[in-house]
């Protein structure tokens, strides 16, 4: 089922949590809302669920499959919601937690006792918890609680599954496993899913599309490839993965950063405007001698070679400190050591020109 949000505003006193958000989630896709804390992503998720109401602005609407559900409360929207801290009912067993949504249905539409039982066990099997049905939430590990919360949300056969930082409270290893598992589950069930996260790796790995949010506004919507490789804004560039920043100016239509010159800045800009060049650590090259390309002189500060890539910290002649990732192979070839002077060139980078008004 598709979800559409139109002109969503939400203010808390003087704080603007959401500022005219418009968004479409396609039927069956897994969409990640990605942003730092305070960016409004959880508020947006809660508005979709009906746990929060948007400000009454003209034209504001929440649509499920082209139907306005703004006037429906959370109980009537039939969404599955997985809370950040799971919000399991502490006085109920795992079984009772999962059965809750089925048991509170009006009598005429409620399943029979046996049917509820069968459905709950089917779900517990799906999340691999059928042996723990009689446990209480306090007797489960974090990852198990997570899965109970998911089974509970799925029990009411939601048209939409909403997950608020689903892996936020888990340790790194459990997180990785559950992430893969969630993606697999989504591929089986194909229920429209919106997931809130502040972890860019998680979003990149799991989602079909990513919504990057910042200060209550959407910065960019796109596939993981699009947002990672073609960031539309400085914020997206900086938030997704590490970057190196060079400051420069526009001179005769080109962006100039010391010896580095980029021909086509992202936008047309007047001469003298401040420009910022973002380069990912793996898009910088280290050479022991100039190789013909425009390059910066730099001094190696520190080398960290434990890991899949070798990470090199350098101080450029222009004063910027940068971080470069190179392969172990290349590292051995060049025989680098701290304090060595090297040349940096750039494979690709992204230029943003600051608004400049006189």
């Amino acid at each position, binding site marked *: 089922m598709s979800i559409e949000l139109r002109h969503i505003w939400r203010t808390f006193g003087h704080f603007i949590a959401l500022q005219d958000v418009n968004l479409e989630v396609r039927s069956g896709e897994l969409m990640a809302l990605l942003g730092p804390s305070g960016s409004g992503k959880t508020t947006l998720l809660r508005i979709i669920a*009906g*746990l*929060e*109401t948007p400000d009454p602005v003209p034209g504001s609407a929440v649509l499920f499959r082209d139907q306005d559900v703004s006037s429906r*409360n*959370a109980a009537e929207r039939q969404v599955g919601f997985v809370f950040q801290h799971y919000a399991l009912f502490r006085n109920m067993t795992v079984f009772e937690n999962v059965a809750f949504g089925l048991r509170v249905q009006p009598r005429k539409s409620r399943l029979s006792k046996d049917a509820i039982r069968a459905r709950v066990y089917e779900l517990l099997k799906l999340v691999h918890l059928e042996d723990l049905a009689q446990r209480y939430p306090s007797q489960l590990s974090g990852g198990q609680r997570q899965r109970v919360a998911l089974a509970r949300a799925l029990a009411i056969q939601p048209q939409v599954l909403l997950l608020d930082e689903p892996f936020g409270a888990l340790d790194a290893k459990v997180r990785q496993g559950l992430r893969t598992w969630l993606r697999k589950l989504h591929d089986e069930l194909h229920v429209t899913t919106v997931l809130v996260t502040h972890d860019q790796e998680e979003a990149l790995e799991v989602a079909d599309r990513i919504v990057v949010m910042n200060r209550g506004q959407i910065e960019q919507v796109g596939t993981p490839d699009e947002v990672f490789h073609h960031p539309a804004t400085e914020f997206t560039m900086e938030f997704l993965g590490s970057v190196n920043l060079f400051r420069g100016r526009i001179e005769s239509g080109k962006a100039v950063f010391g010896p580095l010159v980029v021909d086509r800045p992202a936008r047309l800009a007047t001469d003298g405007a401040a420009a910022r060049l973002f380069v990912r650590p793996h898009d910088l090259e280290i050479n022991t001698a100039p190789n013909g390309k425009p390059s910066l002189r730099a001094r190696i500060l520190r080398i960290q070679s434990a890991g899949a890539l070798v990470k090199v910290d350098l101080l450029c002649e222009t004063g910027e400190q940068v971080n470069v990732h190179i392969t172990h192979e290349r590292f051995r070839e060049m025989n680098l050591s701290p304090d060595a002077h090297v040349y940096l060139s750039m494979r690709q980078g992204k230029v943003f020109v600051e608004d400049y008004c006189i």
Partner: protein
Amino acid sequence: MARRRILPGFGITLGYSVLYLSLIVLIPLAALFLRVTGSSWEQFWDAVSAPRAIAAYKLTFAASFAGAAVNAVFGFIVAWTLVRYRFPGKRVLDAIIDLPFALPTAVSGIALTAIYSRNGWVGRYLERAGIESAFSPLGVTIALTFVGLPFVVRTLQPALEDLDPGMEEAAATLGAGRWQTFRRVILPSLLPALITGFALAFARALGEYGSVVFISGNMPFRTEIASLLIVAKLEQYDYTGAASIGVLMLLASFLMLLAINALQHWVGSRYGRTA
């Protein structure tokens, strides 16, 4: 702005709570203050400054203070012992600390009188030693000590349990002896809780009636506390006089509570916890 709330029942539960609270507590209490403001200043002043009233305040405050002080000392020892040591019967003792809360004041009143009257269980020995306990200010103090006992113990216990053992260990590694550690490290960090407990016991004693009425003998100028004076005035249908003294005592206990809250707040902001 009328924003729809996710959980239902806000209007009705808040409305009901405020209505009930107003009918049972706030409006009747307003009647007390209006009674006093409705009377002339002279009437009020005559009632609250009569020599009999002054004597009653003196006794009330002195006995309450003495009772709270006794509780501060012995309550500290009791709380310390219950938290730090193991000994047989500890669990029962811990449960029975709250007896003065649970035992109706009339029962404690007659029981204390039976103990401390001239031919009572303890009173007869005190009599021989020339000490008059029941029907004297001492008796009032005994009763007020009894009712205030749980406050000091119950505010100190959690503070003692929360005390970081690392602090004492640190003091020991720095060469402090046990007594020095107690006086310089433990006592200062328990002081806010101790003062809070003292103040709570004191505030409770100011308004006490039931446990005192039997043991005091209710002699004006000698063993009559403020609550007893209020009842005496009510029995003479001197409502304005009773209300005047009542308002004065009420303000005194509000001030106490305000002071306690301020103390708690200060401790909370300074040490990041409440006493």
